[in-house]
C-alpha cells in the first residue's frame, strides 16, 4: 500500500489517499498543497498488522512522527518506506532516503533551527500577559470548543485506542464542553503532547472553530527544548521526555 494525496473538492484541497496497485499511481498528486501529516494512518487499527511494508509520503515533520511512533513501540520502522518531500516557497523537493534512519542529518539541522522556528509573535504576546490575562485569553479561545475531538483524531500522536476522556467507568474527564470541560480537555492534550508534538499543524487545521492549538503545542515544545534539550522525533530510539527517569535527576520531585 502507498499512502499519499489526491486532488480534493476544491483546487486548493488535497485528500489523503490509499493505493494498492501500480495502475492507481496516476491518482496521486504531490504539490505544495500536500501539507497534511499522513503518519497517523499508519497506526490505524489493522493497517500494519499483516506485516507488509507500507510506503508513505511524508514531509520532515511526518518523518519525525515516524521516529516517535517507533520510539513509543507503535510501529516497526522496517515496515515503513518513506517517500520524503519538503515544501519551500511553494516548490516541492524530494528528500533523499527511504528508511527513517537516513533522515537523521536532516532532523539534526531542523533541531538547530528550532529555537527560532518555534518563535511566534502571538506566543510572545501571550507570554507577556499576566496570568489573569492569559487565562482570559484561553478562556475565550476554548469557549468555542465543541469537543468534536478533531484535534485528537487528526494528530498522529493521539493513537490511544481509548483516550482518557473516553474512559467512562468512571468518567475521569467531563465530556461537557463548558468552561471547565474545555480547559480540562485542551490542557490534558497539551501535556500529553509535550515533547511529542512535531508541529505539523494537523490539529490546528482540523479544528472547525479555529482554536489556535499550534500556540499551546509550540509553547510546550519550547519548554522541553529549553529545559531538557529534548526535540521530538530525533530518532526511533529517543527516550520519551515525560516517560524517562534518571536517578541523578537534580529535581526532588516528579512533575
Amino acid at each position, binding site marked *: 500500500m502507498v499512502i499519499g494525496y489526491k486532488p480534493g473538492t476544491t483546487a486548493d484541497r488535497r485528500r489523503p489517499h490509499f493505493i494498492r496497485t501500480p495502475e492507481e499511481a496516476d491518482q496521486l498528486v504531490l504539490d505544495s498543497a500536500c501539507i497534511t501529516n499522513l503518519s*497517523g494512518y499508519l497506526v490505524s487499527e489493522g493497517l500494519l498488522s499483516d506485516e507488509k511494508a507500507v510506503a508513505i509520503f511524508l514531509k520532515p515533520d511526518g518523518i519525525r512522527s515516524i521516529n516517535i511512533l517507533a520510539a513509543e513501540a507503535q510501529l516497526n520502522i522496517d515496515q515503513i518506506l518513506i517517500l520524503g518531500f519538503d515544501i519551500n516557497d511553494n516548490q516541492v523537493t524530494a528528500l533523499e532516503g527511504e528508511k527513517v534512519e537516513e533522515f537523521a542529518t536532516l532532523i539534526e539541522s531542523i533541531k538547530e533551527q528550532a529555537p527560532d522556528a518555534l518563535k511566534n509573535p502571538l506566543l510572545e504576546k501571550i507570554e507577556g500577559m499576566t496570568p489573569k490575562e492569559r487565562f482570559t485569553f484561553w478562556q475565550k479561545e476554548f469557549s468555542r470548543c465543541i469537543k468534536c475531538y478533531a484535534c485528537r483524531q487528526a494528530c498522529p500522536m493521539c493513537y490511544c485506542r481509548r483516550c482518557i476522556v473516553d474512559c467512562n467507568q468512571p468518567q475521569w474527564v467531563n*465530556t461537557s464542553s463548558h468552561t471547565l470541560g474545555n480547559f480540562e480537555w485542551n490542557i490534558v492534550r497539551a501535556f500529553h503532547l509535550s515533547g511529542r508534538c512535531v508541529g505539523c499543524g494537523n490539529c490546528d487545521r482540523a479544528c472547525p*472553530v479555529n482554536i489556535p492549538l499550534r500556540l499551546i503545542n509550540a509553547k510546550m515544545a519550547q519548554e522541553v527544548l529549553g529545559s531538557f534539550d529534548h526535540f521530538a522525533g530525533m530518532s526511533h530510539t529517543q527516550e520519551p521526555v515525560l516517560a524517562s527517569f534518571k536517578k541523578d535527576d537534580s529535581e526532588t520531585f516528579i512533575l
Partner: protein
Amino acid sequence: MTRILQSDNLDKCVARWREAGLTVIGPVKNESSSSYAAVEKAAEFDFSLIMPDRSIKELFFPQTEPMLQYTIKKQRIDTSDFTPPPEKRIIFGARPCDASGLAIDDPLFGWDYKDNFWFQRRDTTVIVTIACTKADDFCMCTSLKLVPDSTKGSDVLLRPLQNNKGWQVEELTDRGRDAFNEIADLLQDGSEPAAPTAVVAEKFNLDTCVAWLQKPENFESTFWREISMRCIGCASCTFLCPTCHCFDFQDEGDTYSGIRRKNWDSCSFALFTMHTSGHNPRATQSARWRQRIMHKFNYFPGKFNVNSCSGCGRCSRQCPVDMGITETLQAISTLQP
C-alpha cells in the same frame, strides 16, 4: 408592490426588537470563527458569509445543557429540574438550509417524547431567513430537493434586493407577522427587484442514492470501507451539522450531589455504541460512517418521511480530510443499483 426593509433601517429594527424584550441573534464573524450570536447593533451582523461556520442547531440544542440537579441525602434524594431560559428571541439572517434543518428535526424531538428543551426554544424564537444569492463549492441544498430561497422552517423570508440596500419581506407565519408588526413603520412599499438566488448545481441524484441505500445487500458492500478509509473519526461533521441530533447524558458531581447534563454525542465516535460488555456493534470507522449515511437517507426518512440533511455542506466544507456527504452520495449515485 412588495414590502421592503431597507438596510439603513435595520439598526432601528434591532433596537425596537430589543426594546420589545427580544434577544436579537444573527450571523456574526469574529477574527477566527463565525456563528449565530446575539448582537446589540445591526453593524455586528455579517451578511456576507455564505453561512456561519457553526449551524443554527446550537441555539435550540446546545452542546451542553443542564437537565436536573440532584442531592442524595440520608433518607431521600432531592432533584430539581432545569428549564431553558424563557427568553424570546429573533434570529435575523438565518440561512434557508439552517432553518430547514430545524424543521427536519422537529418530528424527531416530538416523536415518542416531547423534548421541552427543544420546543420551548422553538416556540419562543422567530426565524427570519435571508435567501442565498451566492453559494460555494460545498453548498448542495438543490441535491436535497431544497432551494436557496426555501421557506421551510422560517417565520419570515427575506430576499436581498438587487441594489443591495435591503430586502423584500415575505411573512410566513403568525410568529413572523407579530415580530414584523413591531417594526411595521420601518418597512416601506416598493418595487425594487430582488437579486437572483444563488445557482446551486445538483451534485447527485438523491432518488438513485436512496434506492441503493434501501437495498439490504448494500449494507455489507465493500463500498463503505473504501469510501471511509481516510475518515479519522472526529465529530466535526456531526457537530456542525444542522440536523445531527444525537446526545448523551452525563452526571457531573460527586457521590452526594451533581448535575445531570445533556451533551452532544456523535456516531463517529467508537464509544458511541460501545456496550458495557466491551462489545461494539459498530467496531470499525466504516460501519460508523455507513450509519451516518443510512440514518440520514434511509432510517430517518423511513420514520419521518424526510431526509435528515438540508444540504448546507458543512460536513464537507469543514472536514479535516475532505470527506463528507456529497462525496459519498456522488459515489453511490454512480454504483449499480
